[in-house]
């Protein structure tokens, strides 16, 4: 047992050393601490949502509304952040909107990563015709500005939040695949991969045991930190009106409700509050992403 533990501990050692180094660099920067704090705050909100804003209908993601009255109302005891157009409660919306944001980000990143790792590995390792075909295919998707292609896909597949998720995955995977493939190509040319082939390892073993462990961590970390950017795109689609359905607890959708009221500063809360939520959420991810990017960038490492 002790042997196992020692093995495990020393097995984790390079990873721990690496993480400790990254951590020390990340912590050096006060901005990334801020990023961590922001994200911790949002995780807390997402977890505590049912307690902070008890659901009132069968679907907790549908914002309760008092009346059908159009004009937003100000801050009051019953509506701590006021209500937006159509009397949707802003407080409830932003709390449950946090869950929506996490859901969108994690789903899109997770699905894109799985697709891109599978395709990137095959493409990069075997090369040849498969690689050429795959890369040309990614070229085509990358030949469109992402948001516009996503918009077209959502329009074609029918509006809704699920469609937005699907569209963002379809638009997002080629970019990751390119990165995965480039990493695989880099590691593939390392001597230890050739040495593995020289002792008679099968392709699968070479990929799983030698190539992936040496290429995948930075990609996974960087992709996870993309969640902010993905939430931003989804919010943009919701803002345009083709994402979240009516009454859904989604920040982008809530801001789109305030569009007609911005000329009167009396209604400042309708766009400011949900906006602050999106901006800080994304800021948190980007602050962390920036810190990690510096640490993971091999050209800037270890001064």
């Amino acid at each position, binding site marked *: 047992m002790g042997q196992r533990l020692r093995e495990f501990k020393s097995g984790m050692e390079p990873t721990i050393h690496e993480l400790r180094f990254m951590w020390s660099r990340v912590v050096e920067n006060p901005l990334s601490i801020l990023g961590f704090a922001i994200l911790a705050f949002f995780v807390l909100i997402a977890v505590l949502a049912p307690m902070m804003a008890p659901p009132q209908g069968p679907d907790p993601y549908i914002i309760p509304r008092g009346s059908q009255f159009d004009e937003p109302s100000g801050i009051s005891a019953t509506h701590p952040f006021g209500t937006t157009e159509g009397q949707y409660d802003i407080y409830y919306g932003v709390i449950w909107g946090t869950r929506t944001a996490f859901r969108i980000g994690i789903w899109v990143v997770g699905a894109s990563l799985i697709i891109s790792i599978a395709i990137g590995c095959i493409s990069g390792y075997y090369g040849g015709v498969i690689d050429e075909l795959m890369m040309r295919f990614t070229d085509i998707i990358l030949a469109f500005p992402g948001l516009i292609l996503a918009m077209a896909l959502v329009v074609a597949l029918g509006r809704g939040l699920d469609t937005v998720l699907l569209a963002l995955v379809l638009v997002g995977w080629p970019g990751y695949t390119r990165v995965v493939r480039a990493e695989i190509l880099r590691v593939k040319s390392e001597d230890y991969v050739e040495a593995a082939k020289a002792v008679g390892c099968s392709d699968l073993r070479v990929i799983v045991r030698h190539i992936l462990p040496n290429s995948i961590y930075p990609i996974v970390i960087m992709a996870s930190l993309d969640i902010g950017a993905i939430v931003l795109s989804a919010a943009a689609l919701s803002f345009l009106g083709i994402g979240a359905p009516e009454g859904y607890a989604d920040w982008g959708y809530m801001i789109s409700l305030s569009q007609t009221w911005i000329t009167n500063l009396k209604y400042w809360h309708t766009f400011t509050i949900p*906006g602050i939520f999106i901006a800080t959420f994304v800021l948190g991810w980007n602050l962390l992403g920036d810190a990690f990017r510096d640490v993971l960038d091999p050209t800037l490492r270890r001064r």
Partner: protein
Amino acid sequence: MGLRSYLIRRILLVIPTLIGVTLLIFAVIQFFSPIDRASLFITDIKGTSDLDAIIAKYHLNDPVYLQYLYWLQAVLSGNLGWSYSSNMPVLKAMLKAFPTTAELVLISIPVIVLGGIKLGVASAVHRDKLIDHATRFLAIIGWSLPTFWLGLILLAVFFGGLHWFAPGRLGTTSEDFVNNPTLFTQFTGIMMIDGPLNGRPDIALEALQHLVLPTITLTIISIAMIIRVMRSSMLEALSKGYITMARAKGLTEKEVINKHAQRNALIPTITLSGLLAAGMLNGVVITETVFQYKGLGYWAAKAALAAGGTGGSDVPAVLGFALFTGILFVIANLIVDITYAYIDPRIRLE
């Protein structure tokens, strides 16, 4: 491989990419029933009544590859279908809105590129100093702000609060004036040029005034990428052997940075400016929608929501727009790669 054959190859590569782009759009069309697809071939309002004839005419019940060829033929002859929302053929509507967008983009690009490069260099040279932290913080903020929210805040403050700038492209009176062909000739469709050409410099000034907020929005959103790429490639360049060499020659720090490091750092920045183009096109859709700036993006966003179309959208308009931006982006990338070939002597040898 010489520079010339690199360029020829790069230009030829545009053809398969464009075919791919059309294939993808065509694939998206396949989500619709033949009746819905038929509307993609209608070019006037009367056509909506005899869809069956169109289904027959364009072979919409034929095998897919034949359909693609017929569709491609139609697209190549400029037929992108009928836009419900603007009540005219898609191509015509897009051409009409294009100069407006061009005006916005052309004025934003220099601000973004030059500003981004300067700030990125300053940030790298003073790494971990105040100016670096400030620039990076600004870049991250700009990168994190939702475009639409930033636009709305600017509108609320400068239009709702201060009444300095208004949304739209021109004031209502000027707009009417400009759209009256007997009074005003639209040579280019770009007001800053057409205004003075018609002897009305005040129109140009008014257009510029309306451009301030959209330009600021686009800049804040897009500049972050240039700053970060420039900063990291500048840091990389500064760690290279030739920088030590340049210092060992006795060059001033200014020469070392401006001549030796910056030129090398520009190379990765240029290769990534294709992404900038994509970001701008994305940003244009949102920015124009927020500011009611009636260019291509505004038109497409409205079309996506148009009632009465397929599934509540003006599908031909949205797909036509996607195809159009795809082509635009392919051309932008071509220009980027050609510039890159001229800046980096190494590519000429590969």
